């Protein structure tokens, strides 16, 4: 009991001044609840490492499955970090300073998750460093690995000032000064982040796009970069801010208070909507061109959707329901400022981009290439789901701790006077 009281006192000294947080007991219970599904994920991860990857439903026809699709999807969703930073520090949209910190937090989680999932996915995790040491500079995956690792460093550097601005740490001169100078350098750091993000978001598009042995995924392009390179960057920019908005709304719901003003959310939603429209236009052009190109190598368009569950409904859902509908909602001010519609638009947008990543990785492998090959179906098993969702719970814990002790929402005090 004495220890608990001591921790409780310590906890209250760490909470930023001028804001209210739930009791320490309540916080512990919340973290404890999150540990339950997290433990399932840990068990699944240990099973993969200990018993090898036969514990999953991956096979020689499906070397890529949920993990890779989730990796690509998570990184697309985490694009809110670099794009918000770009808009704040380089385009100088000042209002976004109220959400850029949180966008960085979401980015840290997303990129940590992507690397963590890769650590389970590869057959020899202890050899993971070979991708750097024996790098094949012509491979898209090499570009992805380097850029993601470097960008994760950038995100950690962007997160560092938040830690240094904790009430207790900020009392000391050196951390306070360090945080101040890091803030001054933030435009440069953000610019490096934009450069790295451009390449890794694009290279993730290049991963399926360069597979000329798979007509479903292959695209011609500009120099060494297939068109999917540019489409992935655009789609990431389109859904990243929406994901940031979604997580902000979830955090506000859990904290039971407003944390960011409506106009800030509106700016992000509006920009996201415009990027989504641009992406949909270019994606439609690419799809029509792809139909022609695939036909030239003898792969008729119909062959890609010849077998359920990968029928033509997939294309209609990805671009129509999960593309056009959220674009319409986000473009119109009236619908954008209606909170339930905004959340729906963000959900549909993010789902659509996630679906696109699934299509470009898993559906690529579903479609047979040799004439005597068969459609083989794949679905993930609990091990794959649990080890992927592990990062969702870890992310929730990370946000909970960050929100509790670090000043990530500059408008919180103004919106919730004590």
């Amino acid at each position, binding site marked *: 009991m004495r220890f608990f009281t001591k921790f409780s006192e310590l906890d209250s000294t760490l909470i930023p001044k001028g804001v209210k947080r739930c009791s320490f007991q309540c916080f512990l219970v919340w973290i404890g609840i999150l540990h339950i599904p997290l433990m399932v994920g840990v068990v699944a991860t240990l099973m993969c490492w200990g018993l090898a990857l036969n514990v999953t439903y991956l096979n*020689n026809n499906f070397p890529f499955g949920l993990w890779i699709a989730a990796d690509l999807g998570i990184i697309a969703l985490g694009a809110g970090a670099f794009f918000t930073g770009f808009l704040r520090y380089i385009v100088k949209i000042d209002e976004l300073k109220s959400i850029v910190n949180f966008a960085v937090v979401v980015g840290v989680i997303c990129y940590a998750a992507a690397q963590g999932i890769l650590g389970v996915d*590869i*057959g*020899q995790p202890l050899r993971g460093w070979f*991708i750097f040491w024996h790098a094949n500079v012509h491979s898209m995956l090499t570009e992805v*690995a380097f850029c993601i690792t470097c960008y994760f460093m950038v995100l950690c550097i962007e997160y560092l000032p938040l830690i240094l601005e904790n009430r207790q740490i900020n009392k000391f001169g050196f951390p306070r000064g360090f945080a101040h100078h890091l803030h001054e350098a933030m435009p440069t750091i953000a610019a490096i982040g934009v450069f790295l993000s451009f390449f890794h978001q694009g290279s993730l598009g290049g991963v399926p796009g360069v597979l000329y042995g798979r007509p479903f995924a292959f695209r011609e392009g500009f120099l060494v970069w297939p068109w999917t390179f540019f489409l992935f960057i655009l789609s990431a920019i389109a859904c990243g801010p929406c994901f940031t908005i979604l997580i902000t709304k979830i955090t506000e719901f859990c904290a039971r208070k407003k944390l960011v003003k409506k106009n800030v959310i509106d700016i992000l939603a509006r920009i996201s909507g415009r990027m989504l429209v641009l992406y949909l236009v270019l994606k439609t052009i690419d799809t029509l061109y792809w139909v022609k190109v695939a036909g030239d190598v003898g792969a008729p368009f119909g062959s890609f959707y010849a077998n359920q569950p990968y029928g033509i409904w997939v294309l209609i859902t990805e671009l129509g329901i999960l593309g056009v509908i959220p674009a319409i909602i986000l473009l119109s001010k009236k619908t954008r400022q209606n909170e339930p519609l905004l959340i729906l638009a963000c959900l549909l947008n993010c789902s659509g981009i996630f679906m696109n990543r699934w299509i470009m990785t898993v559906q690529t492998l579903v479609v047979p290439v040799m004439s005597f090959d068969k459609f083989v179906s794949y679905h993930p098993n609990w091990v794959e789901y649990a080890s992927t969702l592990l990062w969702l719970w870890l992310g929730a814990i990370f946000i909970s701790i960050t929100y509790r002790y670090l000043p990530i929402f500059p408008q919180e005090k103004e919106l919730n006077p004590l």
Partner: protein
Amino acid sequence: MKEAHHKGHGRIYKYGMAIDLDKCTGCGACMVACMAENNISFRKENTNDRLTQNFWMRVYKISNGRPFPDSEISYIPRPCQHCEGRDHHHGTPCVSVCPATATDYSHETGIVSQIYTRCFGCRYCMAACPYHVRVFNWWDPKWPKGMNKSFNPDVSIRMRGVVEKCSFCYHRLQRARNKAYVAGRRELHEDEYQTACTQACPAGAVTFGDLINPKHKVYKLKDSPYAFRLLEKLGTNPKVYYLSTKDWVRKAGKVFLGNEGRG
């Protein structure tokens, strides 16, 4: 394509195969010989599971889809195709995508190698290969008691988490070169380097040799009017030629058209 590095042999080779599908009976001797030669692991629980078994050479069964009495079947043994690719931007599909350079195309021999100790199992090469020649070690190999005594000492055992594939019995090329070197020669005779599957085939359906050496049988066979390659239109430029007098079998080399595969 890049000029080959003439590593002490002064010549470029393009080792390849010609497989006569009219002769192939689908007996599977090539598959068994390959497994024995290359210390390929197996699990008796997965004998019929083509999705997780480590077959480097795999025999597909196809049919013309017609009802009796016009029904015909054929067998297609499919080793690694050792694709050359079309140009610098479209090299061998699996080689260009490997992030750790664990697989490489040799311009000297035309063989696509795999470095098991460097592969970290990302499986990108497996996604790139349209022929499904690459298999992944989903398990650690478990050998029946005493089987280690019958391993081929020239071929390393692979552990779990790495990708493997047909190597055109490259270890046999190394052995043959060493033997020839000791005998004071650089050039190999056609019969000095043959793959295990070629030698095991009881019907003589598989012919192996240097595709650009006019003295080798495959040189003439590849130019036969009945010769075709799998997925030729994609531009992978494979080194395995198939021969069949049957029109419907030659059409099997085309890209999947949308009808359920008859494999």
